[in-house]
C-alpha cells in the first residue's frame, strides 16, 4: 500500500466572483522512500495541492472533497486538533521562499526548537541538542544556531528550513519550490543534501517546482499539473521520453537544455482562469490536436499503461510522436 494516497482531492477558494477551483479532482500516490515531482506553470495549483494535503488551506480556501490517506488514515476528516499532531510528526513541509519563511526576530536555533517543543514531549535542553544535531546533518555549523536569519545566506536559510522540516523525523516532506530563488550551484548542494537525507531517514518527498530540469534530476515519478488538474502522472523517464499528453510535451520541449537546443516549443495563449475553466478538457483552447470531443467532454484520468496515468482523449496517439511544431 502506498504511504500517501491522494484521491479526488478538491480545494477551492471562495472569493466574491465565485469559486476558484485551484485543485480540482487530483489523484496520485506516494510510495515509501520515493520522490515525486509536481510540475506546472504558475497558478496551476501545485502549492495549493500541498496546502490541501496538510489541511492548511489559507483563507478563503477550503478542502471541499476527496481524501488524503496517510497510512490509511484520512487527513481530510481530521479535526484541527488531531491535524496539529500529525503535521510535522508525520508529514512536514519546506515552504517556498526560504528568504522570507524564517522569523527575522527569532534566533535560528530557537525556531527549530519551537517545532520540537510543539510536537514532542521534550525538554528545552534536549530539544536544543536535537536541533544542533540536525543542523550538523544539513551542513550548518551548530554554533551558528544563535544567529539570526539575516546573518545567513540564501542557501544556509534553505538548509535551516530543511532542518526544521526534518527535526521531528516525519515520513513525508513536501518541498514547495525549495530551490527556486537559489543559484544553480547552491541548488545542486541543497538537492544533494535532500537526496542523502532521504536515504538516511527513508523519507518520501513531494517536490513541487516549475523547473523541469530539476524534476528530471531529482524525481522518481512526476505529476504534471494544468489548471487545477493532474494531466499526466508517470515514471520520470516515461514523462520525458514517452509522454502521452500534449501539454506535457509542450512544457518539456519549451525548456532549453544546456547540451544545446535547436528549437523550442512555445505554447500559445496563457493558462485559463479557474473560476470558469474551459469546458471539456481544460487544455483544449491551447492544444494543437484538440477536437470537438475535447471541447465538450472532459477526458477521464485513466491508467493507460501500468503506472502511467493520463487525462487526454487522444493519448493513444502520442508517445514518441510529436504534436508540437
Amino acid at each position, binding site marked *: 500500500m502506498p504511504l500517501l494516497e491522494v484521491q479526488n482531492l478538491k480545494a477551492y477558494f471562495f472569493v466574491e466572483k465565485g469559486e476558484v477551483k485551484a485543485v480540482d479532482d487530483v489523484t496520485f500516490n506516494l510510495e515509501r522512500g520515493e520522490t515525486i515531482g509536481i510540475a506546472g*506553470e504558475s497558478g496551476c495549483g501545485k502549492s495549493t495541492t500541498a496546502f490541501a494535503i496538510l489541511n492548511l488551506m489559507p483563507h478563503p480556501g477550503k478542502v471541499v472533497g476527496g481524501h488524503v490517506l496517510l497510512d490509511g488514515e484520512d487527513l481530510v476528516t481530521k479535526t484541527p486538533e488531531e491535524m496539529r499532531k500529525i503535521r510535522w510528526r508525520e508529514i512536514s513541509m519546506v515552504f517556498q521562499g526560504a528568504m522570507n519563511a524564517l522569523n527575522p526576530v527569532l534566533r535560528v536555533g530557537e525556531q527549530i526548537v519551537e517545532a520540537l517543543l510543539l510536537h514532542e514531549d521534550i525538554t528545552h535542553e534536549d530539544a536544543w541538542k536535537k536541533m544542533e544535531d540536525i543542523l550538523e546533518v544539513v551542513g550548518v555549523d551548530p554554533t551558528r544556531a544563535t544567529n539570526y536569519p539575516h546573518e545567513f545566506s540564501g542557501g544556509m536559510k534553505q538548509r535551516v528550513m530543511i532542518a526544521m522540516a526534518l527535526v521531528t523525523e516525519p515520513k513525508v516532506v513536501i518541498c514547495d519550490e525549495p530551490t527556486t530563488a537559489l*543559484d*544553480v*550551484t547552491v541548488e545542486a548542494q541543497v538537492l544533494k543534501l535532500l537526496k542523502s537525507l532521504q536515504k538516511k531517514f527513508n523519507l518520501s518527498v513531494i517536490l513541487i517546482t516549475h*523547473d523541469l530540469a530539476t524534476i528530471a*534530476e531529482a524525481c522518481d515519478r512526476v505529476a504534471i499539473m494544468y489548471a487545477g488538474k493532474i494531466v499526466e502522472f508517470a515514471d520520470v523517464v516515461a514523462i520525458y521520453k514517452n509522454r502521452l499528453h500534449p501539454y506535457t510535451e509542450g512544457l518539456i520541449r519549451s525548456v532549453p537544455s544546456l547540451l544545446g537546443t535547436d528549437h523550442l516549443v512555445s505554447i500559445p495563449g*496563457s493558462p485559463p482562469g479557474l473560476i470558469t475553466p474551459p469546458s471539456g478538457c481544460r487544455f483544449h483552447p491551447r492544444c494543437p490536436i484538440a477536437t470537438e470531443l475535447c471541447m465538450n467532454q472532459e477526458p477521464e484520468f485513466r491508467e493507460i499503461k501500468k503506472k502511467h496515468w493520463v487525462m487526454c482523449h487522444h493519448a493513444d496517439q502520442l508517445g514518441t510522436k510529436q504534436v508540437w511544431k
Partner: protein
Amino acid sequence: MPTAEPLIKVRQLKKYFPVRRGLVAALFSRGQIWVKAVDDVSFDIYKNEVFVLAGESGCGKTTTGRLLLNLTEPTEGSVTYGNVDLATISKQEMKALRPKLQIVFQDPYSSLNPRLSVFDSIAECLEVNHLTANREELTERVKMAMEDVRLIPPEDFLYRYPHMLSGGQRQRVVIARAIVSQPEFIVADEPVSMLDASIRAEILDLLKGLIKKYDLTYLYITHDLASARYVGNRIAIMYLGRIAEYGPVGRVIDNPKHQYTAILVSAVPIPDPTLVHTRRAPVGEVPSPINPPAGCRFHPRCPKADEKCATEEPPYEQVEKDHFAACWHWFDPKQWEEEEKALEKEKPKAKGK
C-alpha cells in the same frame, strides 16, 4: 555574425561602491571600505551578436550591464561605443545617444509604470527625445513596435494598463518600449527569469528574431546557462566581479577550462532523466566582494587550488581560437572520471530500465 570592428569596447572597467558605516565605525577606522562589484573587466561586443554575461547572483553582471549603458559611472576604465567614449561625452551628447542604447529589465511586473497605458509606456521614449514629428507618426511607430513584438492587433492593447496583461504580454511591452526608438544595442537583464517555461521560449525567440529586423546587438545577462546557450553567440562567465572565462558559448559550455566554469556547468540540471550526470557545487559560499581573495578569486573554493593560486592572479590564456580562460590549472574532464567511476559503483541502479 560578428564583424571585425567591435561595436562596444570595454576596457579595465571597475565599479566600486562605498560601504556606508555608522559614525563611530567611520571615526575609528582608516579609509573607505568598498564593495568591488566589478573589478577590472574587459571585453568586446561585435555587431549583431548576442554576448552573454553569466554568473551567480552578486557576481557583478548586472552592474556591468548598467555600466555599459552609462547608467552608473565607472570607478575606472572605459566603455567605448563605436568611437565614442561614454565616460568623456557631455550630458547632451549622452542624451542624444540614449535612444540607441536600451535595456530590458528582469521583472515585467515592476518595470512598467502601473499608471501608464501600454501606448504611453512605449511612446514615452519617442516623446522625450522628440523622435517623431507629429501624433500620427508617434502612433504609427508605437503600433509598429507592438506588431514586431507580436502584440497583435495593437489596437487591442494600446489602452490597456499593465495589470490587465499577463506576464508574457508585459514583457512584450517592455521589449516594444526598448525597440521603438530603433536602438542599436540592448542590454537584456534576465529578461525571462520571471516568466513561466512555456512563455520563455516565445520571448527568447522574439529577442532573437529582432536582431535581423532591427540590426541589433545584445548583451544578455543571465544566471541560466541553458538559455544562454540557446540565444547566445559568445559568453563571459563572471565570478566575484571578474571574468573567469570567455569564448563562443557552445565551446565554453562543452569544453570549460576554468575550474569555476567547469563546476558551474556541471551544476546545471539537465532536462533528461536518462542522462546520469553528477551535479557538482563548489565548497562553501561566495566570499564577500568587499575583500575579495587575493590571487585567483576562486581559489578558496577551488578543488585544484595551490599556493600559486592564492598569491598570483592568473592571466587570460588562449584555449583555442576566441576562447580564453584565467586559471592556473586548466580543467581536465579526466579529473572527474575517477570520481564518477567510484560513484557508479556505489549506485548500481541507474534510473529507468
